[in-house]
């Protein structure tokens, strides 16, 4: 193979990442030019937003703490329960990607002052005092997703513990928890910093949760202030300035977490282990409590299905919304997968050369996550406005979605993708394997299972997205979340719950089919 064709192939594989970086630069430059033209009367008073800035980080840090701690504890209990590992992992994955409005309404349905729990307390003549429209409610719902996210990370690590380790532990009468504390801790937390940063980002960007559950006007985050500035005050400058403040503070926190990050692969195993404990009552109890905790929002499905409306189910608007949502998700996921694989390739090539630049690649791919979605949408809106609206809203929403899900794919696939990179690189050089052959014949088969799982997960995640659609909503491409919000705005609350329930079953199907496919191939 000639050097030239090899070079061309490398360039071809890197092309999606270059496209991403160019778009990113274009967006940042637009933001800079936007501020060059700042009007004289623009007066940003930061003291008006100190409450929002403080509360954003307070609730994000508290929710991250609970998500991390409970995620770890839950993963241990789920692992020790010895139940079906694939099912547990798929369930945690599904809970993480559930639409925010579904979980929020589910929690309201269960915990509100007229909810299921309150009725149960009334039956037992116990006073019910919990206020879900408060700081507690915000932390509860924000943590729900991130506990699932964190628990899944630790759980997947635990199931990869080698069987021999477990046998040795048993033969030496060392309890599992002691082994975790003394031996496995380093392995379990390896690569966790990226997950912790993602958790912090997810907790800080909980716009919809705040919108629904901040029953008090004091509970305002930066994202809510951005929403007010852009949607109601037509003040893009303040909206973008607030976005930059959030970006800077998040980067500062993230850099503290990322300090001294290493990517060593100390314990790579393929043979999974199952720990069979003798029936431990507390583990069993813990297992069922965790399952109940995650199933609480699903109770609202009963309410939704009790309001079955076949006319609405078969209405052109509903079918149109489903098709539009699918099309947006399809385009977003396709773009995101291409960019992620290309970025992983670039990232690994730096690792192979022992270059520290791989950290820059990680920052470049994850930087958009630090920016509030509404701010990014506003900059793109401004850019499109200056280009005389040449890009359709459909394309813009798909691109924004793809940019937000790319880092998730990247983080999820990175450890498996770069696994054994040193040996693979040596063999590639030795046998003159071209970059394309390496991607298609070595990398993709290696990450196939993870790729299918993450594709189905992010497909569902972008189906339920509403944030960028808030700015780019357009009656010509109504999506399911917008359809639900229209029902809600027309007094049709029961129908909205019905559509939400149907939507969840639909999401379940999308998640379930790839799992079945993997089981068949396993």
């Amino acid at each position: 193979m000639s050097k030239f064709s090899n070079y061309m192939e490398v360039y071809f594989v890197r092309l999606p990442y270059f496209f991403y970086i160019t778009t990113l630069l274009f967006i940042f430059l637009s933001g800079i030019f936007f501020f060059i033209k700042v009007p004289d009367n623009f007066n940003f008073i930061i003291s008006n937003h100190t409450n929002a800035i403080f509360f954003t980080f307070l609730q994000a840090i508290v929710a991250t703490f609970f998500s991390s701690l409970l995620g770890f504890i839950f993963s241990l209990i789920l692992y020790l329960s010895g139940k079906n590992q694939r099912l547990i992992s798929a369930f945690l994955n599904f809970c993480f990607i559930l639409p925010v409005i579904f979980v929020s309404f589910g929690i309201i349905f269960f915990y509100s002052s007229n909810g299921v729990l309150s009725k149960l307390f009334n039956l037992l003549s116990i006073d019910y005092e919990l206020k879900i429209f408060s700081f507690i409610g915000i932390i509860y719902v924000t943590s729900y997703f991130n506990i699932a996210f964190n628990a899944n990370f630790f759980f997947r690590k635990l199931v990869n513990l080698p069987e021999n380790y477990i046998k040795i532990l048993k033969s030496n009468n060392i309890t599992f928890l002691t082994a975790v504390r003394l031996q496995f801790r380093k392995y379990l937390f390896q690569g966790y910093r990226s997950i912790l940063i993602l958790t912090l980002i997810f907790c800080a960007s909980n716009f919809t949760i705040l919108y629904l559950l901040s029953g008090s006007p004091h509970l305002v985050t930066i994202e809510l202030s951005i929403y007010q500035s852009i949607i109601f005050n037509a003040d893009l400058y303040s909206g973008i300035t607030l976005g930059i403040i959030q970006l800077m503070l998040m980067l500062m926190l993230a850099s503290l977490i990322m300090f001294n990050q290493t990517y060593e692969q100390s314990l790579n195993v393929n043979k999974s282990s199952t720990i069979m404990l003798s029936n431990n009552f507390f583990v069993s109890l813990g297992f069922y409590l965790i399952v109940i905790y995650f199933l609480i929002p699903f109770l609202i499905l009963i309410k939704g299905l009790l309001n079955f409306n076949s006319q609405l189910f078969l209405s052109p608007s509903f079918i149109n919304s489903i098709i539009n949502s699918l099309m947006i998700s399809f385009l977003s996921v396709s773009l995101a997968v291409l960019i992620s694989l290309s970025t992983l390739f670039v990232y690994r090539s730096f690792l192979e050369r022992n270059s520290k630049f791989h950290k820059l690649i990680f920052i470049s791919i994850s930087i958009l996550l630090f920016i509030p979605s509404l701010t990014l949408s506003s900059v793109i809106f401004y850019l499109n406005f200056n280009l005389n609206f040449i890009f359709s809203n459909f394309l813009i929403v798909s691109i924004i979605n793809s940019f937000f899900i790319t880092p998730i794919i990247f983080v999820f696939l990175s450890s498996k993708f770069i696994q054994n990179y040193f040996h693979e690189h040596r063999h590639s050089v030795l046998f003159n394997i071209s970059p394309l052959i390496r991607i298609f014949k070595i990398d993709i088969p290696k990450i196939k299972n993870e790729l299918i799982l993450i594709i189905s997960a992010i497909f569902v995640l972008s189906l339920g997205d509403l944030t960028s659609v808030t700015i780019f909503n357009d009656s010509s491409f109504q999506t399911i979340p917008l359809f639900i919000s229209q029902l809600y705005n027309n007094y049709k609350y029961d129908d909205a719950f019905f559509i939400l329930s149907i939507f969840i079953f639909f999401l379940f199907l999308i998640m379930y089919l790839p799992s079945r496919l993997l089981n068949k191939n396993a």
Partner: protein
Amino acid sequence: MNLKLLTIILFLPIQVLAKEELKILTYGSFNSDWGPGPNIEKEFESVCNCNLIWNTAESSGALLSRMKLTKNNEGYDVLLGLDDSLIKEAEGNDLFLEHKIKEFNLDLDWNNKFFTPFDYGYFSFIYDQTKLSTPPQSFDELASRNDISIIVMDPRYSTPGLGLAKWIDQVYQEGAAEFWKNLQDQIVITSKSWSDGYGLFLEGESDVVLSYTTSPAYHSLIEGNSNYQSLNMIEGHAIQIEVMGILKNASNYELARNFLEFSLSENFQKHIPQGNWMYPVIDLQNSQNDFYSAAPKPKPLDQIFPSLSEKESWILNWKLSLNE
């Protein structure tokens, strides 16, 4: 002969055959399947030989914001859905053309050269009469009844929320901030939007909710449930008027003007009561008797069209009560 005809048809510019288009920007619920938009579209297209193209923004406030940002570079002809609290601000931004409609035979006083009204409503508090047997009849009584929990909307995010701030200002004027302080103890939820607040009320989260006097009509006429009623305040109820106007850069001024005239006719207005759940701007008591019976008009307060600073002072009164 046939060949000649075919040649003419083939080479005829497509624009000659195409119908004129009228592009309207409105809020989402107006043009949903259950809103009045689809029926109005059919009615107007049957008389105009044109195509109505709808596009939507999230809310009434978002409509004006979008226009201020884009200066209508998107090329809409009509903006439908601003409310009276946004009229002065919209006029100040020089975004609209005069409609030149001279005569208004409306159910409410109207005289504005840029905007025509298409519906109106009165802010009110809604309660479930099976749960609240002795409803308060005045603001003072409402604030003194500590047994009554209330859901209101945040005036920074929601037009009904701003409407309540206006209502309290109209009733109490200098004493508005003091009244807000008295009311705060009973406010259990300050929601970001009307739909969220109203939904939570229906779930039983409060005894009363800020909404419109027309809300009970939906429950009565669609769900057959007459339990939901509107408080009848002796001080009177603040009005909200929704309007439309012709945008600068409108590609077809005449067609847009025809639409504004059409909006004041019965063929448009008959879709408002049970489509947008507001009062029509012309008197339809004879044909929509059910609606008017289910949503009797309350004692009205004066119409006011606030400036930006007036709105800010209403919000400030509300904010002051929060700091207590």
